[in-house]
């Protein structure tokens, strides 16, 4: 296990309990095996217990790929700890594999000596064949020798456990994820009651299924407790998190909650216009529940309509938002340009996924940064923000909305699949601590008996008069216009001036965002620069390198356009600058372009987050040169 293997105490059955600091578990099985559910429940009970947790769901794009196939394997990894953790872990300590395909695709990530729990009932000839095994690896003495293998007949034991309930054998077998969960709960001394409560409310209309799942959970637990197969079990004490009340939150939940919050405290109507797309749809799902908060959700006919309706809602005076993923942004691009030239406030969320085209819909990547910056026709600048982790989505999305309104511009918010689906404990804020947006819709004419929609303030921001206001009737549009009337103007000097003003307005935002912070020495051998969902891996790697005595610092950017004003000084304070990214060097390109600093890349495009160890060994190799 991860560390501090001290025999601590014994349980009532006389089995010893060892204390551990951090554990990484992965549940994997067929898409229909309920692995996401098992992982989510383990996360919940660990969070409620008081561990720090970090999760990595990993599932195929197909809803139900052929049963037993390699392509249909669904996994859920989580790390839980008595310390602050920032990633779901590199190597897996305990792997639960529900079928041969899951074993084949996941066993490489299990550390040597790690615990491997398999459902041996699923290792029949048919499943072995589908996974490409010529013989049963569970019966081969040379296979799996480096792991602590536990063969558990989960299907049969689950069927036995629920035998008296009169379920069909298919229904009975479907409970086996709860058997696996119960076993792992015993192994890590978890309190199953939050899961039992969840089962009761989930199956409230079907008491038999409540009973079946709870029986399966208990059977798994008893199996660990009673059989000789498991000699020890483990405890991971509570983490020393900042005091306060917590709940578990995913990035998409936090994004939706942040949107609803900023609208509520600013006393504004929130209108979400979107089109279903993985991995952004949960934002739509969450917001569509919040009708009693005055949140309107519009499921448009396509991404173009979603963006267009967002613009219409912004013109109408709502806090207008949309969320999608990369392919959706491609479709929205023309309308985003209309948002830029009309200078209307709105937030566009891109929950990035693997691309190009349909790419890897369920896997993470951060390769849409340049698309956000430049993916429109003409000179079309807009602010770009990126959250660092799930909880950060709550705060930064409010900041994005604030910038949109205060600077009258569309704002990009670049989340990613890893942040969106990943969960972590979230310190519940006090509503009274949150800052509303001050919104001013003019009611008086600002010109000589006319309303001038493009009369700009000292920050080059235009006023936001809304339809329904007497006397302020005005027209906006996609054609070039002149200040301050907004009337169509094709003049050469005017176009230059308007282009410059739109760009300068976005640059001015740098005066209103926080300065960039650095973790580590102010000057030194090497600076790691990261953005978005790589935060946890890079932060953990930096701490590890620092613990090794290396002169390494870390700057994580949440504001990508404009950059914080002090960024140039920071970049020029280190002998080397490295930007690890889940793309081919997009931030690196922006930094090199803007600051003429020799930023080096460390790129990974595998649909997966960085392992901490990958970053540590790469940086060490650079420092040794």
């Amino acid at each position, binding site marked *: 296990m991860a560390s501090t293997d001290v025999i601590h105490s014994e349980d009532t059955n006389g089995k010893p309990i060892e204390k551990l600091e951090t554990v990484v578990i992965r549940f994997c099985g067929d898409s229909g095996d309920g692995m996401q559910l098992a992982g989510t429940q383990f996360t*919940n009970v660990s*969070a*409620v*217990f*008081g561990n720090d947790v970090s999760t990595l769901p990993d599932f195929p794009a197909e809803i139900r790929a052929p049963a037993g196939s390699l392509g249909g394997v669904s996994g859920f990894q989580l790390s839980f700890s008595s310390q602050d953790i920032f990633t779901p872990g590199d190597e897996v300590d305990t792997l639960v594999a529900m079928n041969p395909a899951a074993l084949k695709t996941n066993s490489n990530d299990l550390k040597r000596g790690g615990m491997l729990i398999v459902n041996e009932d699923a290792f029949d000839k048919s499943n072995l064949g589908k996974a490409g095994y010529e013989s049963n690896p569970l019966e081969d003495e040379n296979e799996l020798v480096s792991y602590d293998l536990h063969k558990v007949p989960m299907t049969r034991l689950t069927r036995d456990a629920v035998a008296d309930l009169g379920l069909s054998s298919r229904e009975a077998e479907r409970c086996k994820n709860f058997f696996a969960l119960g076993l792992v709960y015993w192994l890590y001394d978890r309190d199953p009651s*939050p899961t039992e409560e969840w089962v009761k409310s989930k199956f409230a209309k079907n008491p038999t299924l409540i009973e079946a799942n709870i029986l399966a959970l208990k059977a798994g637990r008893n199996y660990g407790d009673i059989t000789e197969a498991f000699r020890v079990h483990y405890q991971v004490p*509570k*983490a020393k998190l*900042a*005091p*306060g*009340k*917590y*709940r578990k939150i995913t990035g998409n939940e936090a994004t939706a*909650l942040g949107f*609803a*919050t900023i609208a*509520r*405290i600013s006393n504004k109507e929130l*209108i979400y216009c979107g089109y279903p797309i993985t991995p952004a749809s949960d934002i739509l799902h969450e917001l569509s529940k*919040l*009708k*009693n*908060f*005055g949140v*309107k959700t519009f499921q*448009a*006919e396509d991404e*173009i*309509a*979603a963006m*267009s*309706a967002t*613009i*219409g*809602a912004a*013109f*109408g*005076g*709502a806090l*207008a938002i949309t969320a999608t993923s990369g392919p959706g942004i491609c479709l929205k691009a*023309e*309308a985003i*340009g*209309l948002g830029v030239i009309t200078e209307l406030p709105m937030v566009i969320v891109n929950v990035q996924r693997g691309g190009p085209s349909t790419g890897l819909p369920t896997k993470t990547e951060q390769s849409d940064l340049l698309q956000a910056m430049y993916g429109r026709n003409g000179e079309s600048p807009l602010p770009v923000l990126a959250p660092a982790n799930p909880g950060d989505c709550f705060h930064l999305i409010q900041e994005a909305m604030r910038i949109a309104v205060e600077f009258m511009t569309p704002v990009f918010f670049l989340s990613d699949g890893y942040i969106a689906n990943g969960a972590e404990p979230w310190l*519940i804020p006090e*509503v009274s601590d949150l800052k509303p947006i001050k919104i001013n819709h003019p009611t008086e004419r600002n010109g000589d008996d006319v309303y001038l929609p493009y009369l700009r303030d000292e920050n080059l921001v235009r006023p936001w008069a809304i*339809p*329904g*206001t*007497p006397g*302020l*009737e*005005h*027209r*906006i*549009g*996609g054609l070039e216009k002149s200040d301050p009337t907004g*009337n*169509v103007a094709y003049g050469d000097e005017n176009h230059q001036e308007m282009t410059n003003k739109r760009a300068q307005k976005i640059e001015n935002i740098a005066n209103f965002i926080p300065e960039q912070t650095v973790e580590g020495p102010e000057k030194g051998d090497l600076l790691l620069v990261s953005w978005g969902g790589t935060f946890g891996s890079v932060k953990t790697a930096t701490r590890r390198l620092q613990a090794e005595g290396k002169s390494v610092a870390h700057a994580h950017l949440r504001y990508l356009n404009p950059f914080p004003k002090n960024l140039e000084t920071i970049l020029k304070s280190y002998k080397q600058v490295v930007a690890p990214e889940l793309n081919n060097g997009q931030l690196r390109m922006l930094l090199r372009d803007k600051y003429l600093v020799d930023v080096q890349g460390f790129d990974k495009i595998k649909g997966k987050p960085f392992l901490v160890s990958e970053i540590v060994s790469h940086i060490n190799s650079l420092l040794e040169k």
Partner: protein
Amino acid sequence: MSVELPVLTAKDYASDQEIRWCPRCGDYSILAQMKKVLPTLGIPKEKFVFVSGIGCSSRFPYYMDTYGIHSIHGRAPAIASGVKLSNPELQVWVITGDGDALSIGGNHLMHAIRRNINLNIILFNNQIYGLTKGQYSPTSPQGKRTKSSPYGSIELPLSPLSVAIGANATFVARSVDVDVKHLEATLKRAANHKGTSFVEVYQDCNVFNTGAFDYASKKGTKLDNLVYLEDGKPLIYGQNKDKGIRLNGMNRPEVVELGKGISEDDLLFHDEKAEDSSLAFMLSRLKYPNFPEPVGVFRNVSHPVYDEDVETQLKETIDSLGDGDLEKLFNSGDTWVVE
């Protein structure tokens, strides 16, 4: 309490912008009728919003002293839907053309109509792309020679009204640009309908497709080529009101002459309120020169209105769940306390 509205005239709805349509373009007449209609609706001026896409007709909002967006090609119905969602009290007009609405924006048109959002969509049909200087459009007749079809278009045209009726439009009408009284009355009825109103206006592009609608607009011919629809009235037309349309034994429309044993009672009677849209659809298929083309209101039925239902659902949710409480929302689900 009724609030007295200031008395406005067409002039009050004219913006200070120079109108840049070609001289004698049919758009002028539509603009003029619109400016006449708005002051008669009993709606304060600040509540009107005009949304357009791209094309000659889409310059329309710039010429109206109301709120307006001249947007991007084909997207006006979607933008207008967003405006309406933000403030259902606004009266939102969509100004579009045959290319804008039926080609690049076909999807948005269909879905705005399907949802029955309270919009007034006016489609200026000139059967040509004017702003791009003369390519065939989705309503150009087969064989039409244009810059992009020098040997004649091989494509079959769409009927805008058939499309709208197919999407279950609740208000469907047609008028002709120069038929000013009829156009004014049609726009007014469209404005007063709750739900999506869809109006096709035959509009002459006198530069790239001049005379396309002469049969429907010239004094000498139009009465023989158009049938004016009136609810509950038989379909009679012709200079001398001596022709009509009846359904034959196969339930298909045919042109008949009145007299010689055929009376008005034998003719098809218009029923704009029929819930079943097949009569309206059949009327939308009547094409010159085989038939007179119907103008007026094809269909006018009452269905639930999207933007009203959005508001109703919000209210009902507040009634059943209580007004949203952020603190409760933050603390929902499993929570735990770290000391």
